[in-house]
C-alpha cells in the first residue's frame, strides 16, 4: 500500500483521506471506499431496488467521485458529497433502464442466535414492523427514497437534502409529505 498509516492508530478524517487521495494516494481512497461502501450501496439500492444495478451505480459513483476529488471542498463533509454522486448515478440508471418495479423492502429475519434487539425495536411489535414495511413498500419511489435516507439509513436532514439535490427546506417538506402519505397508507383498511 502506498498510503501513510494513520497516526497512533486513529482513523484519519475523511477530509484528510480525500486530500491524500487527490494527491495520488490510492490507499487513502480505498479507505474511503471501504468506509462508505455499505451506505453508498444502500443508497443506490433504495433508488434502483436492484442489487446488480445498485452495485454498478455505487461502483461507478466511486470512480466518478475519485476523478471529481479536485472539486471536493475540504470545508464540507465528504459523506453527503459522495452520496449525492451515488444517488445521481443510481437515478440515472433507474431512469435509463426504466426499472421501476424492484425488490420490496423486507424486515430482517430474527433468529435465536441474533443479538438482543434494541429497546426501540423490541417495543415495536412484529406485526407493527410488518405493517410499517408494507406501508413503505406501497409508497411511490420518491417518498420511499426520502424516508429511506432519513430514517432507514439515518442520514441527517442536511445530508438527506444533499443526497436529494435539493435545499434543506425542500427536503423537509418533501419528507413531511412522504410521511403524510405513509400515514394515509396506514389509515387504509387492511
Amino acid at each position, binding site marked *: 500500500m502506498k498510503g501513510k498509516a494513520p497516526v497512533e492508530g486513529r482513523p484519519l478524517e475523511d477530509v484528510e483521506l480525500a486530500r491524500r487521495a487527490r494527491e495520488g494516494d490510492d490507499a487513502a481512497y480505498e479507505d474511503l471506499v471501504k468506509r462508505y461502501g455499505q451506505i453508498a*450501496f444502500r443508497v443506490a439500492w433504495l433508488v434502483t431496488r436492484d442489487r446488480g444495478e445498485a452495485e454498478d451505480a455505487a461502483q461507478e459513483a466511486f*470512480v466518478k467521485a475519485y*476523478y471529481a476529488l479536485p472539486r471536493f471542498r475540504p470545508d464540507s463533509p465528504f459523506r453527503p458529497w459522495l452520496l449525492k454522486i451515488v444517488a445521481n448515478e443510481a437515478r440515472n440508471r433507474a431512469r435509463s433502464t426504466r426499472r421501476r418495479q424492484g425488490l420490496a423492502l423486507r424486515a*430482517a429475519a430474527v433468529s435465536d442466535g441474533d443479538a438482543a434487539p434494541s429497546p*426501540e425495536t423490541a417495543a415495536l411489535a412484529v406485526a407493527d414492523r410488518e405493517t410499517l414495511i408494507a406501508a413503505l413498500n406501497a409508497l411511490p419511489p420518491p417518498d420511499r427514497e426520502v424516508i429511506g435516507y432519513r430514517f432507514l439509513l439515518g442520514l441527517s436532514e442536511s445530508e438527506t437534502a444533499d443526497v436529494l439535490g435539493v435545499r434543506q427546506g425542500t427536503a423537509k417538506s418533501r419528507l413531511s409529505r412522504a410521511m403524510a402519505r405513509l400515514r394515509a397508507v396506514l*389509515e387504509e383498511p387492511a
Partner: protein
Amino acid sequence: MSERLRAMSDEDLGAALSSLDIEWPSTPALHTAVMARGASERPAIVHLRLSRPKRIMLIAAATVLLLAGAAVAAKIVIDLGGVVVEVTPSRPGILPTPSIAPTGEPVTLEEAAVTLGREVPVPSGLGPPDRVWADEVFAEKGDVARVTLAWHARQGLPEISNTRYGAVLMVFEGDTDLASKDLYEDTGVLQFERVDGVDYYWTTGTHLLELLTSDGVAYVRVEGNVLLWRDGLHTMRLETSLPMTEALRIAASTGTP
C-alpha cells in the same frame, strides 16, 4: 392496520421507522472493483492545466463523435441530468427564430444563490456577469431552480448570433430534466470531451432547445456553440461563439461545487 402505529405522532413514527431492521442485500466488495477500475482507467484521464492551449488541443482530439459518422443511428440520446441532448437525423422544416432562451426574473448573484441553494458558480475566466436571472419550476420531484448568467459581447468574447451577449451560462439544479436539445445530423456537430475527469459535451450548429420554465415550455432556436457538463449536482450549459478550447477554458474556471 395497527392502532398503535396510527396513533403515533410524526416523531414517534420516525423513531419507529429508524428502529426497523431492514434486510438489506449484502454489500459487494466495492473497494476491490473500484480500485481495479481506477488503476486501469487512469491512463485515459489526463490532468492538465487548462492554461496551456496546446495540451487542451491534444485532449480535445481524444474522443470525437461527429454526427456525419453517426448517420446510421436513428437517434443518439445523452442525458446529463438537467439537460437531455437528442441527435436526430434531420432538422424539421420549421424552426423558431434564433433567440436567447427565457431566463426568468432578474436577480442579484446573492438572490440567485438563495434560489439555487448554493453559491452560483461564476467562471473566473469571464469575470462578474453583467446580468443574472433566476427561474424556478415546480416539477414532479419538487421545485427546481435554473440560474442564468450573461456577459455582454466584448473584445475576445464575440456576440452570440441574435443576442447582445458574448456568453450565457445556465445552471440547472438537480437532475430533473428541464431542458432538451434537439441537434440535427445534417447541420450540427456533437463532440465528447473528458478533461480532468469531467465529461463535456460540445455542440455546434443549429439546434432546438426545449426548456421548461415557470411560464411553461419554451422552444428556442440556438445557433451558438454550446458546452454542457455536470458540476456536482448541477448541469451547466455555456453558450458562446467561441471555439471549444476557449469554452473549455472558461468552464474549467467555474467555481467548484
